[in-house]
Protein backbone atom coordinates (compact mmCIF):
# COMPACT_ATOMS: atom_id res chain seq x y z
CA UNK A 1 0.00 0.00 0.00
CA UNK A 2 2.85 2.31 0.91
CA UNK A 3 4.53 1.42 -2.36
CA UNK A 4 1.39 2.35 -4.28
CA UNK A 5 1.14 5.68 -2.47
CA UNK A 6 4.78 6.38 -3.32
CA UNK A 7 4.20 5.66 -7.02
CA UNK A 8 1.07 7.83 -6.97
CA UNK A 9 2.88 10.73 -5.29
CA UNK A 10 5.70 10.73 -7.84
CA UNK A 11 3.55 12.04 -10.63
CA UNK A 12 2.20 15.03 -8.76
CA UNK A 13 5.28 17.11 -7.99
CA UNK A 14 8.53 15.16 -8.06
CA UNK A 15 8.12 13.73 -11.53
CA UNK A 16 5.33 15.93 -12.79
CA UNK A 17 5.02 15.04 -16.49
CA UNK A 18 4.64 18.63 -17.65
CA UNK A 19 6.89 20.52 -15.26
CA UNK A 20 9.64 18.01 -14.55
CA UNK A 21 9.64 15.46 -17.35
CA UNK A 22 8.51 18.18 -19.78
CA UNK A 23 6.55 15.93 -22.10
CA UNK A 24 3.11 16.54 -23.58
CA UNK A 25 3.57 20.30 -23.64
CA UNK A 26 1.74 21.16 -26.87
CA UNK A 27 -1.69 20.27 -25.62
CA UNK A 28 -0.96 21.86 -22.29
CA UNK A 29 -0.14 25.22 -23.80
CA UNK A 30 -2.89 25.18 -26.39
CA UNK A 31 -5.95 24.32 -24.29
CA UNK A 32 -5.13 26.37 -21.22
CA UNK A 33 -6.89 29.48 -22.42
CA UNK A 34 -9.87 28.66 -20.22
CA UNK A 35 -10.35 26.66 -17.05
CA UNK A 36 -13.17 24.48 -18.41
CA UNK A 37 -10.95 23.46 -21.33
CA UNK A 38 -8.15 22.69 -18.91
CA UNK A 39 -10.30 20.51 -16.66
CA UNK A 40 -11.81 18.70 -19.64
CA UNK A 41 -8.41 18.00 -21.18
CA UNK A 42 -6.95 16.84 -17.89
CA UNK A 43 -9.77 14.43 -17.17
CA UNK A 44 -9.84 13.10 -20.74
CA UNK A 45 -6.10 12.49 -20.68
CA UNK A 46 -6.32 10.78 -17.31
CA UNK A 47 -9.04 8.47 -18.58
CA UNK A 48 -7.06 7.47 -21.66
CA UNK A 49 -3.84 7.10 -19.64
CA UNK A 50 -5.47 4.97 -16.97
CA UNK A 51 -7.12 2.46 -19.26
CA UNK A 52 -4.24 2.31 -21.72
CA UNK A 53 -1.85 1.53 -18.88
CA UNK A 54 -4.20 -1.13 -17.48
CA UNK A 55 -4.67 -2.92 -20.80
CA UNK A 56 -1.00 -2.78 -21.76
CA UNK A 57 0.10 -3.90 -18.32
CA UNK A 58 -2.30 -6.86 -18.53
CA UNK A 59 -0.79 -7.88 -21.86
CA UNK A 60 2.81 -6.89 -21.15
CA UNK A 61 4.16 -10.43 -21.14
CA UNK A 62 2.53 -11.19 -24.48
CA UNK A 63 3.39 -8.06 -26.50
CA UNK A 64 6.57 -8.68 -28.58
CA UNK A 65 9.17 -5.98 -28.08
CA UNK A 66 9.70 -5.40 -31.79
CA UNK A 67 6.03 -4.64 -32.45
CA UNK A 68 5.28 -2.78 -29.24
CA UNK A 69 4.88 0.74 -30.69
CA UNK A 70 2.02 -0.01 -33.12
CA UNK A 71 0.28 -2.07 -30.46
CA UNK A 72 0.56 0.75 -27.92
CA UNK A 73 -0.83 3.23 -30.45
CA UNK A 74 -3.77 0.98 -31.25
CA UNK A 75 -4.70 0.61 -27.60
CA UNK A 76 -4.30 4.32 -26.89
CA UNK A 77 -6.26 5.22 -30.02
CA UNK A 78 -9.10 2.95 -28.98
CA UNK A 79 -9.54 4.74 -25.68
CA UNK A 80 -9.06 8.16 -27.27
CA UNK A 81 -11.90 7.37 -29.66
CA UNK A 82 -14.06 6.28 -26.75
CA UNK A 83 -13.49 9.51 -24.83
CA UNK A 84 -13.87 11.59 -28.00
CA UNK A 85 -17.28 10.10 -28.74
CA UNK A 86 -18.37 10.37 -25.11
CA UNK A 87 -17.44 14.06 -25.03
CA UNK A 88 -19.16 14.72 -28.33
CA UNK A 89 -22.31 13.09 -26.95
CA UNK A 90 -22.46 14.44 -23.41
CA UNK A 91 -20.34 17.64 -23.47
CA UNK A 92 -20.80 18.99 -27.00
CA UNK A 93 -19.80 22.64 -26.27
CA UNK A 94 -16.65 21.54 -24.46
CA UNK A 95 -15.82 19.14 -27.25
CA UNK A 96 -16.26 21.89 -29.82
CA UNK A 97 -14.17 24.41 -27.89
CA UNK A 98 -11.34 21.92 -27.49
CA UNK A 99 -11.58 20.96 -31.13
CA UNK A 100 -8.80 18.84 -32.51
CA UNK A 101 -6.94 18.46 -29.21
CA UNK A 102 -9.09 15.57 -28.02
CA UNK A 103 -8.19 13.26 -30.91
CA UNK A 104 -4.61 14.52 -30.49
CA UNK A 105 -4.48 12.80 -27.10
CA UNK A 106 -3.43 9.75 -29.11
CA UNK A 107 0.00 11.27 -29.74
CA UNK A 108 0.28 12.88 -26.33
CA UNK A 109 3.83 12.10 -25.24
CA UNK A 110 2.79 11.56 -21.64
CA UNK A 111 0.65 8.54 -22.51
CA UNK A 112 3.21 7.04 -24.86
CA UNK A 113 5.98 7.78 -22.39
CA UNK A 114 4.30 6.25 -19.36
CA UNK A 115 3.07 3.24 -21.28
CA UNK A 116 6.55 2.59 -22.65
CA UNK A 117 8.45 3.30 -19.46
CA UNK A 118 6.07 1.93 -16.85
CA UNK A 119 3.07 -0.06 -18.03
CA UNK A 120 5.04 -2.40 -20.25
CA UNK A 121 7.12 -3.48 -17.26
CA UNK A 122 5.05 -3.24 -14.09
CA UNK A 123 2.06 -4.95 -12.50
CA UNK A 124 -1.46 -3.71 -13.09
CA UNK A 125 -2.02 -2.29 -9.60
CA UNK A 126 1.18 -0.23 -9.80
CA UNK A 127 0.10 1.02 -13.22
CA UNK A 128 -3.22 2.22 -11.84
CA UNK A 129 -1.42 4.22 -9.15
CA UNK A 130 1.03 5.63 -11.69
CA UNK A 131 -1.70 6.61 -14.16
CA UNK A 132 -3.74 8.33 -11.49
CA UNK A 133 -0.70 10.16 -10.17
CA UNK A 134 0.46 11.33 -13.57
CA UNK A 135 -3.07 12.29 -14.55
CA UNK A 136 -3.52 14.32 -11.38
CA UNK A 137 -0.15 16.01 -11.92
CA UNK A 138 -1.14 16.90 -15.47
CA UNK A 139 -4.58 18.14 -14.43
CA UNK A 140 -3.45 20.39 -11.58
CA UNK A 141 -0.88 22.08 -13.80
CA UNK A 142 -3.42 22.54 -16.58
CA UNK A 143 -6.04 23.99 -14.24
CA UNK A 144 -3.47 26.26 -12.59
CA UNK A 145 -2.12 27.65 -15.84
CA UNK A 146 -5.62 28.01 -17.29
CA UNK A 147 -6.86 29.79 -14.19
CA UNK A 148 -4.05 32.36 -14.33
CA UNK A 149 -4.33 32.87 -18.07
CA UNK A 150 -8.09 33.14 -18.13
CA UNK A 151 -8.22 35.39 -15.07
CA UNK A 152 -5.67 37.89 -16.32
CA UNK A 153 -6.37 37.60 -20.02
CA UNK A 154 -10.14 37.51 -19.93
CA UNK A 155 -11.29 38.51 -16.47
CA UNK A 156 -13.31 35.30 -16.14
CA UNK A 157 -12.84 31.95 -14.46
CA UNK A 158 -14.60 29.03 -16.13
CA UNK A 159 -16.78 31.55 -17.93
CA UNK A 160 -17.84 33.40 -14.78
CA UNK A 161 -16.84 37.06 -14.66
CA UNK A 162 -14.59 37.31 -11.61
CA UNK A 163 -12.70 40.54 -12.15
CA UNK A 164 -14.61 43.82 -11.71
CA UNK A 165 -16.16 45.38 -14.78
CA UNK A 166 -13.50 48.11 -14.90
CA UNK A 167 -10.77 45.51 -15.35
CA UNK A 168 -9.17 45.68 -18.75
CA UNK A 169 -8.03 42.18 -19.78
CA UNK A 170 -4.32 41.84 -20.42
CA UNK A 171 -4.42 40.10 -23.79
CA UNK A 172 -0.81 39.01 -23.43
CA UNK A 173 -1.84 36.08 -21.25
CA UNK A 174 -4.35 34.65 -23.70
CA UNK A 175 -1.83 34.73 -26.53
CA UNK A 176 0.95 32.13 -26.92
CA UNK A 177 3.75 34.22 -25.35
CA UNK A 178 1.71 34.50 -22.18
CA UNK A 179 1.16 30.76 -22.20
CA UNK A 180 4.88 30.12 -22.35
CA UNK A 181 5.59 32.66 -19.64
CA UNK A 182 2.99 31.28 -17.23
CA UNK A 183 4.27 27.77 -17.95
CA UNK A 184 7.80 28.89 -17.07
CA UNK A 185 6.49 30.40 -13.83
CA UNK A 186 4.87 27.08 -12.97
CA UNK A 187 8.12 25.21 -13.59
CA UNK A 188 9.90 27.43 -11.10
CA UNK A 189 6.98 27.01 -8.67
CA UNK A 190 7.30 23.23 -8.97
CA UNK A 191 11.04 23.28 -8.38
CA UNK A 192 10.50 25.40 -5.29
CA UNK A 193 7.80 22.99 -4.03
CA UNK A 194 10.08 20.03 -4.67
CA UNK A 195 12.88 21.71 -2.72
CA UNK A 196 10.53 22.40 0.18
CA UNK A 197 9.31 18.79 0.20
CA UNK A 198 12.84 17.43 0.14
CA UNK A 199 13.84 19.66 3.03
CA UNK A 200 10.80 18.51 5.01
CA UNK A 201 11.56 14.87 4.29
CA UNK A 202 15.21 15.30 5.28
CA UNK A 203 14.11 16.91 8.53
CA UNK A 204 11.66 14.12 9.35
CA UNK A 205 14.25 11.48 8.43
CA UNK A 206 16.77 13.14 10.76
CA UNK A 207 14.17 13.26 13.52
CA UNK A 208 13.34 9.57 13.02
CA UNK A 209 17.04 8.74 13.37
CA UNK A 210 17.26 10.75 16.57
CA UNK A 211 14.30 8.91 18.03
CA UNK A 212 15.72 5.54 17.02
CA UNK A 213 19.19 6.31 18.40
Amino acid at each position, binding site marked *: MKRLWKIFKQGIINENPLLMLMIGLCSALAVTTSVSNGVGMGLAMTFVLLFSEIIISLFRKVIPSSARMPIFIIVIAAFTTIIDLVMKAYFPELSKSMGVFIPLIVVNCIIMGRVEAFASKEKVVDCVADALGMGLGYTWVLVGIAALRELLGNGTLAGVQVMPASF*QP*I*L*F*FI*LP*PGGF*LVFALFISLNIWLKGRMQKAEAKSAAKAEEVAA
Partner: protein
Amino acid sequence: MPANNLLLSSSPHVFTPVTTRKIMLAVIIALLPATGYGIYLYGLTALLLVLATVAAAVAAELLFRAAIKAPRTVGDLSAVVTGLLLALVLPPSTPIWMAVLGAVFAIVVAKEFFGGLGANPFNPALVGRAFLLMSFPAAMTTWNKPFSAIADAVTTATPLNLVKQGASLAEVAKSVGAADSGGLYWQLFVGSRSGSLGESSILLICLGAAFLLAVGVIQWIIPVAVLGSTALFSWLFGMNPLFSLLSGGVVFGAFFMATDYASSPLTPVGKAIYGVGIGLLVALIRKLGGFPEGVTYAILVMNMLSPFLDKLRVKKYGWIPPKKSAAKEAVK
Protein backbone atom coordinates in the same frame (compact mmCIF):
# COMPACT_ATOMS: atom_id res chain seq x y z
CA MET B 1 65.12 43.94 2.90
CA PRO B 2 61.85 45.01 4.45
CA ALA B 3 59.18 42.95 2.71
CA ASN B 4 56.47 45.10 4.25
CA ASN B 5 57.17 47.77 1.61
CA LEU B 6 55.42 45.53 -0.91
CA LEU B 7 51.66 45.40 -0.95
CA LEU B 8 50.42 42.03 -2.19
CA SER B 9 46.93 41.74 -3.61
CA SER B 10 45.26 39.71 -6.29
CA SER B 11 44.01 41.08 -9.59
CA PRO B 12 42.41 43.32 -10.79
CA HIS B 13 45.12 45.92 -10.43
CA VAL B 14 43.87 48.47 -12.95
CA PHE B 15 40.64 50.27 -12.11
CA THR B 16 38.56 52.47 -14.34
CA PRO B 17 36.71 55.49 -12.97
CA VAL B 18 33.84 54.69 -15.33
CA THR B 19 31.20 52.95 -13.27
CA THR B 20 27.87 51.62 -14.43
CA ARG B 21 26.24 54.47 -12.57
CA LYS B 22 28.21 57.06 -14.54
CA ILE B 23 27.31 55.43 -17.83
CA MET B 24 23.64 55.37 -16.91
CA LEU B 25 23.80 59.00 -15.78
CA ALA B 26 25.26 59.95 -19.15
CA VAL B 27 22.37 58.18 -20.90
CA ILE B 28 19.82 59.94 -18.68
CA ILE B 29 21.40 63.32 -19.43
CA ALA B 30 21.36 62.51 -23.14
CA LEU B 31 17.66 61.65 -22.95
CA LEU B 32 16.61 64.79 -21.06
CA PRO B 33 16.28 67.13 -24.08
CA ALA B 34 13.95 64.73 -25.91
CA THR B 35 11.98 64.09 -22.71
CA GLY B 36 11.65 67.80 -22.03
CA TYR B 37 10.41 68.43 -25.54
CA GLY B 38 7.90 65.59 -25.25
CA ILE B 39 6.53 67.13 -22.04
CA TYR B 40 6.41 70.51 -23.75
CA LEU B 41 4.37 69.01 -26.60
CA TYR B 42 1.95 66.92 -24.57
CA GLY B 43 1.67 68.63 -21.23
CA LEU B 44 1.59 67.62 -17.61
CA THR B 45 0.16 64.13 -18.22
CA ALA B 46 3.30 63.33 -20.16
CA LEU B 47 5.44 64.39 -17.20
CA LEU B 48 3.34 62.19 -14.92
CA LEU B 49 3.74 59.31 -17.35
CA VAL B 50 7.51 59.61 -17.35
CA LEU B 51 7.74 59.89 -13.56
CA ALA B 52 5.36 57.00 -12.97
CA THR B 53 7.17 54.69 -15.39
CA VAL B 54 10.57 55.46 -13.88
CA ALA B 55 9.25 55.05 -10.34
CA ALA B 56 7.59 51.75 -11.24
CA ALA B 57 10.78 50.42 -12.82
CA VAL B 58 12.88 51.35 -9.78
CA ALA B 59 10.31 49.93 -7.36
CA ALA B 60 10.01 46.71 -9.37
CA GLU B 61 13.77 46.14 -9.29
CA LEU B 62 14.00 46.99 -5.58
CA LEU B 63 11.12 44.72 -4.56
CA PHE B 64 11.95 41.80 -6.82
CA ARG B 65 15.59 41.68 -5.79
CA ALA B 66 14.57 41.90 -2.14
CA ALA B 67 12.11 39.04 -2.68
CA ILE B 68 14.70 36.72 -4.21
CA LYS B 69 17.33 37.85 -1.67
CA ALA B 70 19.70 39.21 -4.30
CA PRO B 71 22.02 42.16 -3.63
CA ARG B 72 20.49 45.58 -4.14
CA THR B 73 21.55 47.14 -7.45
CA VAL B 74 19.15 50.05 -7.76
CA GLY B 75 22.05 52.43 -7.25
CA ASP B 76 23.45 51.78 -10.68
CA LEU B 77 20.49 53.67 -12.18
CA SER B 78 19.85 51.06 -14.88
CA ALA B 79 16.21 50.75 -13.80
CA VAL B 80 15.85 54.51 -14.18
CA VAL B 81 17.17 54.29 -17.72
CA THR B 82 14.85 51.41 -18.59
CA GLY B 83 11.85 53.26 -17.18
CA LEU B 84 12.77 56.45 -19.00
CA LEU B 85 13.32 54.66 -22.31
CA LEU B 86 10.00 52.85 -21.96
CA ALA B 87 8.16 56.06 -21.17
CA LEU B 88 9.65 57.73 -24.24
CA VAL B 89 8.40 55.04 -26.64
CA LEU B 90 4.85 54.99 -25.32
CA PRO B 91 1.99 57.06 -26.76
CA PRO B 92 1.51 60.12 -24.55
CA SER B 93 -2.08 59.17 -23.80
CA THR B 94 -1.14 55.82 -22.24
CA PRO B 95 -2.97 55.29 -18.96
CA ILE B 96 -0.57 55.45 -16.03
CA TRP B 97 -1.45 51.99 -14.75
CA MET B 98 -0.64 50.49 -18.14
CA ALA B 99 2.78 52.13 -18.20
CA VAL B 100 3.41 50.91 -14.65
CA LEU B 101 2.50 47.37 -15.69
CA GLY B 102 4.78 47.60 -18.69
CA ALA B 103 7.67 48.86 -16.57
CA VAL B 104 7.20 46.05 -14.04
CA PHE B 105 7.11 43.49 -16.86
CA ALA B 106 10.19 45.00 -18.50
CA ILE B 107 12.26 44.95 -15.32
CA VAL B 108 11.06 41.69 -13.80
CA VAL B 109 10.68 39.47 -16.87
CA ALA B 110 13.12 40.95 -19.37
CA LYS B 111 15.88 41.81 -16.93
CA GLU B 112 15.64 40.14 -13.52
CA PHE B 113 14.43 36.73 -14.69
CA PHE B 114 17.55 36.43 -16.81
CA GLY B 115 19.94 37.47 -14.06
CA GLY B 116 19.90 41.25 -13.80
CA LEU B 117 21.91 43.94 -15.51
CA GLY B 118 24.17 42.68 -18.24
CA ALA B 119 22.45 39.31 -18.55
CA ASN B 120 19.39 40.41 -20.46
CA PRO B 121 19.30 38.96 -23.97
CA PHE B 122 16.62 41.47 -25.05
CA ASN B 123 16.32 45.21 -24.59
CA PRO B 124 14.07 45.49 -21.49
CA ALA B 125 12.32 48.70 -22.52
CA LEU B 126 11.40 47.23 -25.89
CA VAL B 127 10.17 44.01 -24.28
CA GLY B 128 7.95 46.14 -22.07
CA ARG B 129 6.64 47.99 -25.08
CA ALA B 130 6.03 44.79 -27.03
CA PHE B 131 4.16 43.37 -24.02
CA LEU B 132 1.96 46.48 -23.85
CA LEU B 133 1.35 46.50 -27.59
CA MET B 134 0.27 42.86 -27.46
CA SER B 135 -1.90 43.28 -24.38
CA PHE B 136 -3.61 46.59 -25.06
CA PRO B 137 -3.52 47.12 -28.81
CA ALA B 138 -6.17 49.84 -28.78
CA ALA B 139 -4.45 52.04 -26.21
CA MET B 140 -1.02 51.55 -27.72
CA THR B 141 -2.11 52.75 -31.13
CA THR B 142 -3.95 55.91 -30.07
CA TRP B 143 -1.92 58.98 -30.93
CA ASN B 144 -2.54 62.55 -29.86
CA LYS B 145 -2.10 65.84 -31.62
CA PRO B 146 0.65 67.88 -29.99
CA PHE B 147 -0.39 70.91 -27.93
CA SER B 148 -3.87 69.54 -27.23
CA ALA B 149 -4.75 68.58 -23.67
CA ILE B 150 -4.82 64.84 -23.31
CA ALA B 151 -8.16 64.91 -21.49
CA ASP B 152 -10.10 66.24 -24.45
CA ALA B 153 -7.73 64.53 -26.82
CA VAL B 154 -8.04 64.74 -30.53
CA THR B 155 -6.70 61.45 -31.73
CA THR B 156 -4.81 61.60 -34.92
CA ALA B 157 -2.75 59.46 -37.23
CA THR B 158 1.02 59.58 -37.20
CA PRO B 159 2.85 60.17 -40.47
CA LEU B 160 3.65 56.47 -40.67
CA ASN B 161 0.01 55.57 -40.01
CA LEU B 162 -0.99 57.76 -42.94
CA VAL B 163 1.59 56.19 -45.22
CA LYS B 164 0.41 52.72 -44.20
CA GLN B 165 -3.11 53.66 -45.15
CA GLY B 166 -1.84 54.71 -48.55
CA ALA B 167 -1.51 58.47 -48.22
CA SER B 168 0.98 60.28 -50.40
CA LEU B 169 3.75 62.43 -49.02
CA ALA B 170 1.82 65.58 -49.88
CA GLU B 171 -1.06 64.47 -47.66
CA VAL B 172 1.35 63.65 -44.86
CA ALA B 173 2.88 67.10 -45.27
CA LYS B 174 -0.55 68.67 -44.90
CA SER B 175 -1.22 66.67 -41.73
CA VAL B 176 1.83 68.10 -39.99
CA GLY B 177 1.11 71.58 -41.32
CA ALA B 178 4.01 71.77 -43.74
CA ALA B 179 3.78 73.49 -47.10
CA ASP B 180 5.83 71.10 -49.20
CA SER B 181 8.18 68.15 -48.91
CA GLY B 182 11.07 70.35 -47.77
CA GLY B 183 8.86 71.77 -45.09
CA LEU B 184 7.73 68.23 -44.22
CA TYR B 185 11.28 67.05 -43.68
CA TRP B 186 12.04 70.09 -41.54
CA GLN B 187 8.90 69.51 -39.47
CA LEU B 188 9.76 65.86 -38.99
CA PHE B 189 13.30 66.78 -38.02
CA VAL B 190 12.51 69.52 -35.55
CA GLY B 191 9.37 68.07 -34.05
CA SER B 192 5.73 68.87 -33.38
CA ARG B 193 4.34 65.76 -35.07
CA SER B 194 2.27 63.11 -33.35
CA GLY B 195 3.97 59.96 -32.24
CA SER B 196 5.34 58.47 -29.05
CA LEU B 197 6.58 60.70 -26.26
CA GLY B 198 10.22 60.89 -27.20
CA GLU B 199 10.36 60.44 -30.93
CA SER B 200 9.08 63.84 -32.02
CA SER B 201 12.24 65.92 -32.14
CA ILE B 202 14.95 64.18 -34.11
CA LEU B 203 17.13 67.23 -33.54
CA LEU B 204 17.10 66.80 -29.77
CA ILE B 205 17.58 63.03 -30.06
CA CYS B 206 20.65 63.63 -32.21
CA LEU B 207 21.91 66.20 -29.71
CA GLY B 208 21.70 63.67 -26.92
CA ALA B 209 23.28 61.02 -29.10
CA ALA B 210 26.15 63.35 -29.99
CA PHE B 211 26.78 63.80 -26.26
CA LEU B 212 26.86 60.03 -25.76
CA LEU B 213 29.23 59.57 -28.69
CA ALA B 214 31.47 62.32 -27.35
CA VAL B 215 31.79 60.72 -23.91
CA GLY B 216 32.26 57.31 -25.46
CA VAL B 217 29.20 55.59 -24.02
CA ILE B 218 28.05 54.41 -27.44
CA GLN B 219 30.08 53.66 -30.56
CA TRP B 220 29.19 54.95 -34.00
CA ILE B 221 29.03 51.54 -35.71
CA ILE B 222 25.55 50.45 -34.67
CA PRO B 223 23.70 53.76 -35.24
CA VAL B 224 25.39 54.33 -38.59
CA ALA B 225 24.64 50.75 -39.66
CA VAL B 226 21.00 51.02 -38.58
CA LEU B 227 20.34 54.39 -40.18
CA GLY B 228 22.28 53.58 -43.32
CA SER B 229 20.58 50.25 -43.91
CA THR B 230 17.13 51.68 -43.10
CA ALA B 231 17.66 54.34 -45.76
CA LEU B 232 19.07 51.83 -48.24
CA PHE B 233 16.38 49.20 -47.83
CA SER B 234 13.59 51.76 -47.73
CA TRP B 235 14.84 53.11 -51.02
CA LEU B 236 15.10 49.55 -52.42
CA PHE B 237 11.51 48.82 -51.38
CA GLY B 238 10.33 51.96 -53.13
CA MET B 239 9.82 54.20 -50.10
CA ASN B 240 11.31 57.66 -49.69
CA PRO B 241 14.57 57.07 -47.76
CA LEU B 242 14.71 60.50 -46.11
CA PHE B 243 11.09 60.22 -44.99
CA SER B 244 11.75 56.73 -43.64
CA LEU B 245 14.64 58.00 -41.57
CA LEU B 246 12.82 61.01 -40.21
CA SER B 247 9.53 59.35 -39.29
CA GLY B 248 8.76 56.91 -36.54
CA GLY B 249 11.29 55.78 -33.98
CA VAL B 250 14.25 54.73 -36.16
CA VAL B 251 16.61 57.48 -35.00
CA PHE B 252 15.63 57.02 -31.37
CA GLY B 253 15.95 53.27 -31.67
CA ALA B 254 19.28 53.46 -33.49
CA PHE B 255 20.97 55.61 -30.87
CA PHE B 256 19.33 54.59 -27.61
CA MET B 257 17.74 51.16 -27.99
CA ALA B 258 19.96 49.23 -30.37
CA THR B 259 23.11 50.21 -28.52
CA ASP B 260 22.16 48.51 -25.25
CA TYR B 261 25.35 46.77 -24.15
CA ALA B 262 23.90 43.48 -22.99
CA SER B 263 21.70 42.74 -25.96
CA SER B 264 23.91 43.88 -28.82
CA PRO B 265 27.00 42.11 -30.19
CA LEU B 266 30.51 42.82 -28.90
CA THR B 267 32.62 42.51 -32.02
CA PRO B 268 32.66 45.28 -34.64
CA VAL B 269 31.70 42.89 -37.43
CA GLY B 270 28.85 41.62 -35.31
CA LYS B 271 27.73 45.17 -34.56
CA ALA B 272 27.71 46.09 -38.22
CA ILE B 273 25.65 43.08 -39.27
CA TYR B 274 23.32 43.69 -36.31
CA GLY B 275 22.72 47.26 -37.47
CA VAL B 276 22.17 46.23 -41.07
CA GLY B 277 19.73 43.54 -39.94
CA ILE B 278 17.73 46.05 -37.92
CA GLY B 279 17.50 48.41 -40.90
CA LEU B 280 16.39 45.60 -43.18
CA LEU B 281 13.71 44.44 -40.75
CA VAL B 282 12.43 47.97 -40.17
CA ALA B 283 12.03 48.51 -43.91
CA LEU B 284 10.41 45.08 -44.34
CA ILE B 285 7.91 45.54 -41.53
CA ARG B 286 7.02 49.03 -42.69
CA LYS B 287 6.56 47.91 -46.27
CA LEU B 288 5.00 44.48 -45.94
CA GLY B 289 4.01 44.02 -42.34
CA GLY B 290 0.77 44.80 -40.59
CA PHE B 291 2.23 47.41 -38.25
CA PRO B 292 2.98 50.93 -39.47
CA GLU B 293 6.18 51.05 -37.39
CA GLY B 294 8.60 48.17 -37.05
CA VAL B 295 11.54 49.38 -34.97
CA THR B 296 10.45 47.56 -31.79
CA TYR B 297 10.29 44.13 -33.36
CA ALA B 298 13.27 44.71 -35.63
CA ILE B 299 15.52 45.43 -32.67
CA LEU B 300 14.07 42.56 -30.63
CA VAL B 301 14.64 40.05 -33.43
CA MET B 302 18.23 41.18 -33.94
CA ASN B 303 18.76 41.02 -30.16
CA MET B 304 17.88 37.37 -30.50
CA LEU B 305 20.63 36.92 -33.06
CA SER B 306 23.42 38.89 -31.34
CA PRO B 307 25.07 35.94 -29.56
CA PHE B 308 25.48 34.23 -32.93
CA LEU B 309 26.77 37.40 -34.58
CA ASP B 310 29.49 37.52 -31.95
CA LYS B 311 30.75 34.14 -33.10
CA LEU B 312 31.17 35.22 -36.72
CA ARG B 313 34.61 36.71 -36.36
CA VAL B 314 36.11 35.69 -33.08
CA LYS B 315 39.21 37.65 -32.21
CA LYS B 316 41.81 35.53 -30.51
CA TYR B 317 43.47 37.88 -28.10
CA GLY B 318 47.26 37.61 -28.15
CA TRP B 319 47.36 35.57 -31.34
CA ILE B 320 50.14 36.73 -33.65
CA PRO B 321 49.71 35.57 -37.26
CA PRO B 322 52.85 33.77 -38.54
CA LYS B 323 55.09 35.80 -40.87
CA LYS B 324 54.84 34.72 -44.53
CA SER B 325 58.67 34.48 -44.97
CA ALA B 326 58.98 32.16 -41.99
CA ALA B 327 56.31 29.90 -43.48
CA LYS B 328 58.20 29.75 -46.78
CA GLU B 329 61.37 28.83 -44.88
CA ALA B 330 59.51 26.00 -43.16
CA VAL B 331 58.27 24.68 -46.49
CA LYS B 332 61.83 24.67 -47.87
